[in-house]
């Protein structure tokens, strides 16, 4: 049994324009759908936008948004579900339900269809067609034959092949993967589904493969797809309301323990794993602190509690045992990404560290703080400190795609990487042999050969430069007015045979790294 709402793409966005005004939906510069008033002026699907606007200049052009259509279709689905349970969404605008149970319940298919028609019309209104046939494919095409005056059509059981027979083979285009097959059938003189169904199935299968088999089945009215019933995603959010508002971090986590245990147990029972959670801490003064935590594997109850504790500790921003400035009114935990557990079954050799390593490092993290124990990776970037990615142990490192290491980074350093990359660049001074500061012009010219390097510490603080190279320009985001940086890099070796990577930026000099 198919329920069809004609022109759904247009109806989903109808509230954005005046009633009856021509409307065109476009995607990738091509018309996807148009309202009936626009269609009257000669606009059709597949037309270029410019051509469509030429034919109907007063039409409103909107981008086609499938997700909006799907969202708008939800009330219709709910209305159908109230009459007949187990709705399958073919696409926004077309839904299907199994007729068998409805027929038994309402007495006949016709009565069931009428029931749906009235039920949905009362709730949603507008043009609505209901069709009953042997399969989804047949029912869909029966629905297309109805009109607004007689919105209900029933093809009795067994009559579907006869109904389908006169339809042209081009209706198969949406059903089979091969694009060329309907055209090929036409050229072979097979113009209707009836012609196709008259052939031997084995021959069609041999000529067209799986697509041919499917097409033959559809043409013979034998399609009985398994309707996958729409299931609303369940909400696993946990909310902990603290009745007596407390300012002690430990007290809050203690009060959360039971709920978090229940949350993880609940997920385990559903055979789900969670590797991203969003923790929201609501304070007494009405403010809320939200933070998303990612886990490289999946969260256990202790992990979730640790995240809650760290988030509360970040709020105190001081000593670990200090009470919070504002009392905590509630904590809510939302699982952001859930995955079936069987996707994450541990391999035979394990893709995660041993249990004792995890245990030892997590314990260490409890004493040193969340950011005290780090894991690292190399990412893309021009400045060396940007290329070093550090994440607290237990947080997921960015994926190789997010690291963008393979992308070309013009201005990258040649040669071996330095072993010491300063987290905070050292301010240094580079002088020529006449004790004048070295200046790099905007065209990359050096005012004099760098001869002396003056360091903020170390003995001797002023050293003679024995070898140097540069300037190597680094232009970061020059197309942005605010975030852009102009740097010039130098490699130096001083008389102590220490090698340095020095950066000149706007007349000031910094030591970026040391080769040691």
């Amino acid at each position, binding site marked *: 049994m198919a329920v069809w709402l004609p022109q759904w793409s247009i109806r989903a966005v109808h509230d954005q324009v005046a009633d009856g005004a021509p409307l065109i939906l476009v995607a990738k510069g091509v018309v996807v759908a148009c309202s009936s008033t626009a269609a009257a002026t000669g606009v059709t699907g597949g037309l270029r936008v410019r051509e469509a606007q030429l034919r109907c200049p007063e039409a409103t052009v909107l981008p086609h948004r499938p997700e909006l259509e799907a969202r708008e279709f939800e009330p219709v689905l709910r209305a159908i579900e109230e009459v007949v349970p187990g709705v399958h969404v073919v696409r926004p605008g077309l839904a299907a339900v199994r007729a068998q149970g409805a027929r038994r319940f309402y007495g006949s298919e016709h009565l069931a269809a009428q029931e749906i028609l009235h039920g949905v019309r009362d709730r949603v209104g507008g043009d609505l067609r209901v069709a009953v046939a042997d399969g989804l494919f047949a029912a869909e095409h029966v629905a297309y034959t109805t009109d607004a005056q007689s919105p209900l059509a029933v093809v009795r059981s067994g009559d579907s092949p006869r109904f389908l027979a006169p339809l042209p083979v081009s209706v198969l285009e949406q059903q089979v993967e091969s694009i060329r097959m309907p055209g090929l059938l036409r050229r072979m003189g097979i113009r209707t589904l009836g012609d196709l169904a008259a052939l031997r199935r084995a021959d069609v299968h041999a000529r067209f493969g799986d697509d041919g088999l499917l097409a033959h089945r559809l043409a013979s009215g034998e399609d009985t797809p398994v309707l996958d019933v729409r299931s609303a995603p369940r909400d696993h959010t946990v909310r902990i309301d603290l009745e007596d508002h407390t300012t002690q971090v430990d007290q809050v986590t203690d009060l959360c323990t039971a709920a978090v245990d229940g949350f993880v147990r609940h997920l385990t029972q559903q055979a789900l794993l969670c590797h991203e959670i969003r923790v929201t801490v609501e304070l007494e003064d009405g403010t809320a602190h939200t933070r998303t935590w990612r886990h490289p594997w999946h969260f256990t109850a202790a992990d979730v509690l640790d995240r809650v504790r760290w988030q509360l500790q970040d709020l105190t921003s001081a000593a670990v045992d200090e009470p919070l400035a504002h009392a905590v009114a509630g904590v809510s935990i939302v699982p952001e990404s859930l995955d079936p557990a069987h996707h994450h079954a541990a391999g035979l050799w394990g893709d995660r560290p041993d249990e004792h390593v995890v245990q030892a490092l997590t314990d260490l993290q409890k004493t040193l703080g969340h950011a005290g124990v780090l894991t690292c990776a190399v990412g893309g970037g021009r400045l060396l400190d940007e290329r070093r990615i550090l994440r607290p142990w237990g947080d997921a490192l960015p994926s190789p795609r997010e690291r963008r290491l393979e992308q070309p980074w013009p201005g990258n350093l040649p040669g071996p990487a330095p072993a010491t990359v300063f987290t905070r660049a050292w301010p240094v001074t580079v002088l020529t042999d006449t004790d004048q500061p070295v200046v790099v012009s905007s065209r990359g010219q050096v005012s004099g050969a760098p001869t002396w390097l003056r360091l903020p510490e170390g003995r001797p603080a002023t050293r003679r430069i024995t070898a*140097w190279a540069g300037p190597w320009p680094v232009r970061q985001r020059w197309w942005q007015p605010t975030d852009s940086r102009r740097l010039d890099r130098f490699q130096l070796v001083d008389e102590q045979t220490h090698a340095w990577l020095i950066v000149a930026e706007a007349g000031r000099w910094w030591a970026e790294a040391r080769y040691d």
Partner: protein
Amino acid sequence: MVSELHELHDLLERRDTAPSSARLPVHPDLAEAFPSGLRAGTVYSLTGSTTLALAMLAGPSQKGSWCAVVGLPDLGVEAAVEWGVDLDRLILVPDPGVGEWSRTVATLIEIADVVVTAPCRIPPAELSRLTARLRSRQSVMVVTGPWPRAATVQATTVGWDGLGHGHGCLLRQHVRLDITERHQTRSVCLTLPHEATPQSSPLASSLRYFAGTPAVLPRPSSDTSRGPR
């Protein structure tokens, strides 16, 4: 009964103050400096080179060991990758704090085979506890500074290849290592990295060009040096 005796014997042997004969693998570039590998259960006091500390991590890391670096917030992670350290099994503790230092290192010794750490002043009792733990776990601790009763590795940079006056780029470092292990001192000259930069680098061809230019810095005169080809 006999097996229990053997177990006891093994336990005593492990507790024994005599250093064991177990060795940890080293990176091929360091094979000359440590011909039989790193002595498990000892402390190496390394001065003068962070690169060498990374190179000492590389051997065990490639063999699947966990490694840890304590108190070096400025560590160049990229250099570690170039040496072949597996970052998936590298733990960084940038700033353990003086009070928590020995506890942190003790915990990391339990899981990591090599721990590189900045030196820290700790009481003698804790020092001996740490040494005992190191020996029983058969790990290696590399301290980037002076350390009591440790094997010392003194690295001195002799010169650099590839950099001229206004041209070229740093390619190779010539280092002299003075290693004192069990009252025996040996001196080795190394070129780090021994291999040229990877061919996949887009700059590889220009690097080969630079490598051909005469170096302006003095080369090590020792015969043991493996100079650039």
